[in-house]
């Protein structure tokens, strides 16, 4: 699709780090936080996997867990339930300048 002048004006309002969502199934555009795993502390127990209400956490091939960037809502339930405290919440970029968090 060719980008018109209006498209460019529209895009200039947004942070380029966040993609503009076209598939309305995913939560990429409105969440505030993302979980990050510390692999030194992680014991691969799978409690975070069980406690995720969206099914957004999956196990990688090396045994550690990771969040699906498409579907994670940043509710921080996994970090609250983690036994070893290896999950920390990382703030994502603000899309709008008037966004509070």
């Amino acid at each position: 699709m060719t980008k018109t002048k209006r498209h460019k004006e529209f895009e200039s309002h947004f942070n380029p780090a966040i993609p503009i969502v076209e598939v309305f199934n995913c939560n990429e555009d409105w969440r505030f936080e993302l979980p990050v795993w510390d692999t030194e502390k992680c014991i691969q127990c799978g409690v975070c996997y069980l406690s995720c209400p969206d099914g957004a956490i999956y196990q990688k091939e090396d045994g550690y867990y990771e969040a699906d960037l498409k579907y994670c809502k940043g509710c921080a339930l996994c970090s609250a339930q983690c036994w070893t405290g290896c999950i920390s919440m990382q703030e994502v970029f603000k899309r709008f300048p008037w966004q509070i968090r």
Partner: protein
Amino acid sequence: MSQFSVYLPKLLTQDEVFISGRRSCQGCGKALAARIASKIIHGVATVSGNSAASGQFSAGALTAHSYAYDGVTWEPLIENLQSVIRQINESAGSTEQKGRQRIKKAVVGLDRRMFDTEELVVPPAFGSSTAGLYLCFDNEPHIDKLIRMLNPPAFKHAAVSHPPSAAEIKAAIRRKNIPAAVAEGSFSFIATACPSYPLDFIEKVKKALACSGNAFILVLTPCPTGWIFLPKLTIKVGLLAVRTGYFPLYEIENGIVRITQPLQNRKPVQDYLKMQKRFFTFPRELIPVVQEAVNDQCTELLSRAH
């Protein structure tokens, strides 16, 4: 030995049947309960009671109620439930011949509010001729009515409601138990569960699928937007509801009551009420009334249990 229980989630299947998306809020207890149950109910046909009261999530073909999606879902009205479940049970043999997955039992997702509004409709749905599992998600809609009575009237307006009396609070807490329509009906397995005890919940779903006849599970689902607390505290609120005795976990199998989580050393109910912002206007004088009602409920349960 207790430390080995940390690794128990690894025994579950890694396949995801639950479809994630924008259907629920952050940290939704209902979605968490539906996802945990869907790990066990894999090839089971699901039905969602899609009436106006229960269809809170419903939009389009896939709802949060019809979580165990395997190509066999129905969305009838609550009035048609019994006939649809009978069809599922009868067609179990024929679907096996066609090479599809075998249907063990029909699973129905309901909302707790339905028992308050549609009292006349619900009892005929629980017929003895059918065999199904009824998962009832309870986010305490009847407590909101009690809280709304505490709010003062608008300026220069006469008070429409009155602050709730001790008897009304006790009645509201008794109401959150298993409804009378279920207790009087023909159920071979009745249980209460909470997603903050996932392995306990999974065992109950397994038992309910294995038993012959109807089964009913009442699931307490904490709601961060409705009860007003941070979404990361969903599981901790559920834990406190069980540990204070506010929502005791037990199961009734063929008339025999068994308590699955200990009820002897309970925490005060105040801890549970303090966590939620919806009880902000709740007066302190009424907290002992709630404690009394919870104690009565627990002693009654302990006397019934074997």
